[in-house]
């Protein structure tokens, strides 16, 4: 690939979607033993934007992206839904947009899309890199497969160029993964993901195993790379405060459901779902007065047991009678197109004060101080 091809696309400022996921469900197992890991998820990623997906382990956030990109292995089964990828087709010449139904795509079609249009950075860079191959080999293999016209020298030059992008010296190409630090390995993964200039990069907890200083460096670097190449990104993490800084929109997942989907700053300043509020209250702040926080009582549900009603109702401080029996659907709130799946917002009377905030406020009210009865009446 030449340098010209790497300049940002003129059309990147358009507000259209790259990936559209509709009513998407994923099961693990079949028949009666099936466990619903992702339940009727609808999400979209806008061009050149970052969608953050936040959730705890077992919330289905990784399963969702693996299923959408058709990387999910058995016993994972896509139980329903649609996923469409829209990208600029380089083969059609005049930069025409092409939409591919990812669930209907053939193996060869998927092969042409993967890495060149959608690439993934996996959580554990140590496990994702082959321990017996030198770093240079990984780059060589990708380019050899997808860019057949490139000569060996060109491939080598491109690999060096990619390493430079992520702030690593060319000499790392001759190293083995175990010779590099965690941060360097994660940078290599990012460089590999960008090797074919994809339009969508999926980051599955790329910084979770790293120290906070290294995480900061990588996040800063990602911001620079995005500004330069304009790719869209899905960033998966359990660290909501990291997403608030990084993402344009955030979807919060709980037990396989998207419970809230909103612009990042709105979600942080004015959370509308009790789980989002609880998550925000679960991280002790670095500044301000030191006082006791409560977090969220209980633990995440066991998905192999049948759930009734809202998946969060057992831990929700505001739960009403109906929450235990009826499943809330993700629907739009009045303002700014943000979406929430919560019965409390059905009528204004049931919205507790903590979920009604308008002005950005740092102080967070204690949800446990309001009794459930008051809220329900």
């Amino acid at each position, binding site marked *: 690939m030449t340098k010209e091809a790497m300049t940002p696309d003129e059309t990147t400022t358009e507000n259209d979607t790259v990936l559209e996921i509709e009513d998407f469900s994923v099961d693990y197992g079949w028949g009666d033993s099936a466990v619903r890991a992702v339940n009727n998820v609808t999400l979209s990623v806008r061009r050149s934007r970052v969608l953050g997906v936040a959730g705890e382990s077992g919330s289905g956030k990784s399963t969702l992206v693996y299923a959408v990109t058709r990387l999910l292995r058995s016993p994972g089964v896509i139980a329903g839904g649609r996923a469409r990828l829209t990208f600029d087709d380089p083969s059609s010449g005049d930069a025409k947009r092409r939409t591919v139904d990812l669930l209907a795509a053939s193996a060869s079609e998927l092969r042409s899309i993967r890495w060149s249009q959608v690439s993934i950075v996996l959580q554990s860079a140590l496990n994702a890199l082959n321990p017996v191959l030198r770093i240079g080999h990984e780059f060589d293999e990708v380019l050899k497969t997808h860019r057949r016209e490139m000569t060996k020298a060109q491939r080598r030059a491109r690999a060096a160029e990619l390493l430079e992008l992520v702030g690593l010296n060319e000499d790392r190409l001759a190293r083995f993964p175990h010779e590099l630090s965690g941060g360097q390995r994660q940078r290599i993964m990012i460089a590999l993901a960008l090797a074919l200039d994809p339009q969508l990069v999926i980051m599955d907890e790329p910084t979770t195993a790293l120290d906070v200083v290294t995480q900061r460096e990588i996040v800063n670097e990602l911001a620079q790379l995005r500004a330069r190449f304009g790719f869209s990104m899905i960033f998966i993490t*359990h660290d909501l405060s990291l997403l608030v800084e990084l993402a344009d929109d955030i979807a919060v997942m709980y037990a396989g459901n998207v419970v809230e989907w909103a612009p990042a700053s709105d979600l942080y300043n004015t959370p509308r779902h009790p789980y989002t509020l609880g998550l925000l209250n679960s991280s002790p702040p*670095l500044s301000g007065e030191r006082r006791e926080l409560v*977090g969220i009582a209980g633990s995440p549900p066991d998905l192999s047991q049948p759930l009734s009603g809202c998946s969060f109702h057992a831990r929700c401080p505001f739960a009403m009678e109906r929450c235990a029996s009826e499943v809330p659907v993700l629907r739009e709130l009045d303002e700014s197109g943000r979406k929430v799946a919560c019965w409390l917002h059905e009528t204004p009377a049931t919205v507790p004060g903590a979920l009604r905030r308008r002005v950005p406020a740092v102080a967070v009210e204690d949800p446990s101080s309001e009794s459930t009865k008051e809220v329900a009446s």
Partner: protein
Amino acid sequence: MSDAQLEARHLSRHFVVRTGHGLVRPKKVVRAVDDVSLSLHARRVTAVVGESGSGKSVLARMLARIVTPTSGELVLDGVTIPPNTPRSLAYTSEVQLVLQDPFASINPVHAIRHSLERPLAIHGTPKAEIEERASAALARVSLEPPERYLSRYPHELSGGQLQRVSIARALCVNPKVLLADEPISMLDVSVRLGVLNLLRGLCDNEQLAILYITHDIASARYIADETIVMYAGQVVERSEGTALIDAPSHPYTQLLISSVPDPSDPLRQAPEIEDRTGQGQFPTEGCRFAPRCPHAMEVCRTTAPPLIEVASGHESRCWLYEDVAKVAITTRGQGGTISTT
């Protein structure tokens, strides 16, 4: 303040590694922990903050006497532990360790009952009392009713519950010192606070001395009575309470704090990131942080700095404070940098 329950005096642990290729590989000494002193007091949580490789886990293992120190001594309840003696039951009944990963530290093929009763049996609890004490330990970590948990297997419990079991296992021999090595880092965000509040409660209500090891400086701020920051095996900053988090003096602490995502503080400056090509290789001379330090001076590269008092109960291992009067310390609110005036 009461006397220390457990005191570490000038504790060091050096590992010898072979580097390079070939038959004759030169020896290299990794100073994993270098001259660390600390004391743990009843009703106090001492937090040790550091990134991976800073030596904080080796320190915890030395305090638990799993790793033998290269030099230095341990003083338990005023009595110096003779070096090079095996770890005794008397010691482990006073000092207990809680590990990071509850899924890996509790035997998956036995019911919870086994994990709790085994230490009691080893420590010579009469058979008649064992079950009662195991139940009492579960109650102390708010796993109630205990009968419901005793017969369960680890895979039936969530991470948060398992970590509570792990804490109960440490508590059932009634130790005076609890060493918690990253007890919340493997847990889901929503249950972390529960475990932190539990530790705080144990400390306040049961006179425990707790060492809380973490890489999450915000959680240290939440729980600590004394805070210690480690870098490359050394204590680089320590303070009473959380003074070093609210007003960090050492450039490394400043870097650490400014790296934490904190959306509540949008005016914060982005941290100055130094080139880290020499990462993992700490200099053998001078300050170990000097290669990454934005304020490094000539003296930093030649002579290792001592811990210097920068405020009452607040020490920093940095030459910038050699003469505190000459240095204007600006705190986080003003950009988190140090300027020499």
